């Protein structure tokens, strides 16, 4: 089936299949999508693992991410340099972690990283306020935003430090029934 393709060696495809939730066909399709973003930058032949990174500004134009209020944070979380420039490995990793078959625990970890804007391993009040503002695009008044964030911290904070650590977040997400069905990107 994939014998005619020259983009990846067999070894590479096998490695991808083991390290992600995608099949060979899907990996090749993803490579096509990756290349579409910057055809002059991304080579067709990936057999020698070229070190190419597509910048953030191009990645967030993808239709799957375009409408997502957290698109910048998602791409930053999966980039190695933290600035949002994705290599093909990071690209595949991102969509694999967000795909339908990815397990709940993995999604929880990445969700925590995405919502942690200042990367201090806690979702503090400022992170929450940024999240709410991104979600509602400024339609709520500042007092309402503060009230919503206060209530959210009140609901989820277990150890009483008025910010959400990973265990607080994990516990809260395990009780959120929609998380698994909402937190996935179809590609």
């Amino acid at each position, binding site marked *: 089936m994939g014998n005619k393709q020259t983009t990846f060696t067999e070894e590479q495809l096998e490695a991808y299949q083991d*390290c992600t939730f995608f099949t060979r066909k899907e990996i090749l399709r993803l490579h096509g999508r990756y290349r579409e973003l910057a055809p002059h930058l991304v080579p067709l032949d990936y057999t020698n693992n070229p070190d190419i990174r597509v910048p953030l500004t191009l990645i967030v134009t993808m239709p799957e991410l375009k409408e997502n209020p957290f698109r910048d944070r998602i791409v930053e979380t999966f980039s190695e340099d933290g600035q949002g420039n994705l290599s093909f490995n990071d690209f595949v990793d991102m969509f694999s972690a967000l795909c339908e078959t990815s397990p709940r625990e993995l999604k*929880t970890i990445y969700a925590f990283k995405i919502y942690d804007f200042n990367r201090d391993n806690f979702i503090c009040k400022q992170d929450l306020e940024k999240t709410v503002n991104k979600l509602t695009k400024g339609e709520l008044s500042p007092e309402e935003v503060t009230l919503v964030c206060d209530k959210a911290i009140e609901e989820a904070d277990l150890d009483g430090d008025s910010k959400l650590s990973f265990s607080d977040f994990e516990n809260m997400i395990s009780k959120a029934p929609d998380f698994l069905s909402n937190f996935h990107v179809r590609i």
Partner: protein
Amino acid sequence: MEAMEVDSVFYTDRSGRVTSNPLLDQLPSYQSLLYRRKSSTGGTKRRSSTRARLSSSGSGKWGVNTVNRLEEKQKGQTEQRPIRELAKTMAEKRRDKTQRLVEARELSSWRQWRQSTRRNLRRLKDDAQEWLSSLQLWRGDIHLIEGMFGTGILSYFSFLRFLVMLNMIIFLLMFSFVMLPIIMAPYSSGNTTYNQNDGSICSVYPSSARRGLVIFHEHITDLLSGGGFLEQTYLFYGYYKVDKIHFPSITYNLPLAYLLATVAYLFLSLIWIVKRSATGFKRNLVQDEDRFQSFCNKIFAGWDFCITNENAARLKRSSLLYELKTDLEEERIKQKIKDRTRKEKCRIYVIRLILNLFVIAVLAGCFYSIYVATVFSQEAQMNNTKVNFIVDLINEYLPSIVITLANFITPLLFSVIINYEDYSPAFEIRFTLMRCVFMRLTSIGVLLFSLWSQITKCKEEPCVCGYNHVLYSCWETRVGQEMYKLTVFDFIIIVAVTIFVEFPRKLIVKYCECGLAKWWGQQEFAIPQNVLEIVYGQTICWIGTFYCPMLPAICTIKYFFIFYIKKVSLMNNCRPATRPFRASSSNFFFLGVLLIGLALACLPVIVSVAQINCSQACGPFVNYTTSWEVLPTTVAQLPDGVRTLLFALSSEAFAVSFFVFTCLAMFYVIALAGAHKRVINQLRDQLAMEGRDKRFLIQKLCQAQRLSAIKSPASKSQPRSSRSSPCYHTSFSNNFNEAVFLAHPPPDSSTHV
């Protein structure tokens, strides 16, 4: 930005970025965040150099030991997890894979073989799953709908798909056990024996075939009402007059097969629905604290990442906004309810009582009108005076028309009434929905009850044949015809409403600028009402399959077309509802209502099988008094051993002990759940207390450090290994930031912490 925030545990530097207290970073709980969660798949992991750095520069015996122990635990647990479930970068995962391969080579050949088999099986399973899901019906369409409208409406369409599959399986069941033997008999040299017409008055079955010149529109009437040329076909119960089919090797007992197929399809539906709803139900049961988490759910799990369409994104945002505002409003109302005075409470309760009585009166009125309409329709059909094509059709369809009208008016009424009852918004929605469900499903029950009263009412009590043989020589076929008419009418109404109401509405709203257009607004895809519609159809199908074995096939085709009609209507006419319907609770709601429908459908079938005498003039059960009698008769003919076993299973002793055992098991499970809940609450309090302890201790520690730093200003920076006490990872020196030893570099711009 201030230079230092007044927080004794967390400091912000001048750039405003929070650098956590280095002490916190060295806590074991924080270390485990770096590496792994104990029960989940994987934590995050730095480059392997970090591990080396840590172990070599471990500051105290205790520190190194902890790290080593953690590493071992982590290694042991990572063994079992497939690589792709770990939260690491691709490069690290590849390294893990090669490392595992190297380790695998060191293992015995048996383990190697086992690992590689497991891997191959996993790959095979993935491929098989992908192939199976590509076979799924309507995959592309549902994908498209999900992208445009989100997961709430998606759940409606996947529910529709589930019903198509269910009906197809039920039809295959009935076909292969009831129709196929009859069809196959002549081809496989089977000898069919028919039920004898023994000449009694009960077994008179006048033919309803039309004689003479048949006008074209009468064919249409027949098609729509299931009478005339359709009556004596495989469509209805009355045609299955076969008693036994003698094949060369076995004798096929058709009445038994008919009864058992009925029981089988009811059981199959029950098991399939319960299996499908098991996950959602478990989550709803265990996590009833969901309503205490509504804000978190909306903020962190509220955005649907599948949305690719700009319009849909805008609408999702406004619906999230609406939800948040509703929640804030609900908080305000809760506060208001708490502040209600006694007098206001009395007033509210009186109003609620009056309105509930009004609702009951409305329901009673609807049910009575359904009863009257059914009786009138039956009598009109009996009189057989053909007035006019249209009037005849209306007479036939009168019960369906009344039911549809009632189901159209009552939801509007309920949604108006609920505004005066002053409940919280969430409860309002649920209560109105419950009332609508009750109305929909009970109307079928009323129709069947009125039919039953007609069938068992004779001029001279008690009925000679057990049923009114004069009017209903084959009453099962009549009931089957009524169910058939309900199904057909339901389908016609759905098509008619879509074409004649929704499309013009869209045109008016789009092109007309008058006030009517503004007030009416664009069509919303109201999920609850649509779901109730198809559950109603499915309940009719379940009831009617016993009387009309081909009804599941008709329903399959009906739902198949409804999918496309609804999809077209959705794409062209609708915008998503402003009151969003959560995907998870939707699934639970759909399947819950479907279960209620199934329970309701079982009732008439059980009553008619066990209570009402079956027709003596048609159908497979002519030689028995009631349909149920087939079973005891067959059991009596079984060999001795099996017979005693079956008798033992159905005896009172067994039933009572089984019941007692089930009660005990249930009590045990309930007690267990209560105990778990108590433990969870205790642990939660303990956790909060521990958190406070931790912060207190860290505060004290920082104070102590500051004091000692002030006391000894002259001493220079000490070497980086621990000195005085092995407990702290600190050394006492003047410069605060250097004094506290860092186990690892502070969070930098790298994303993998």
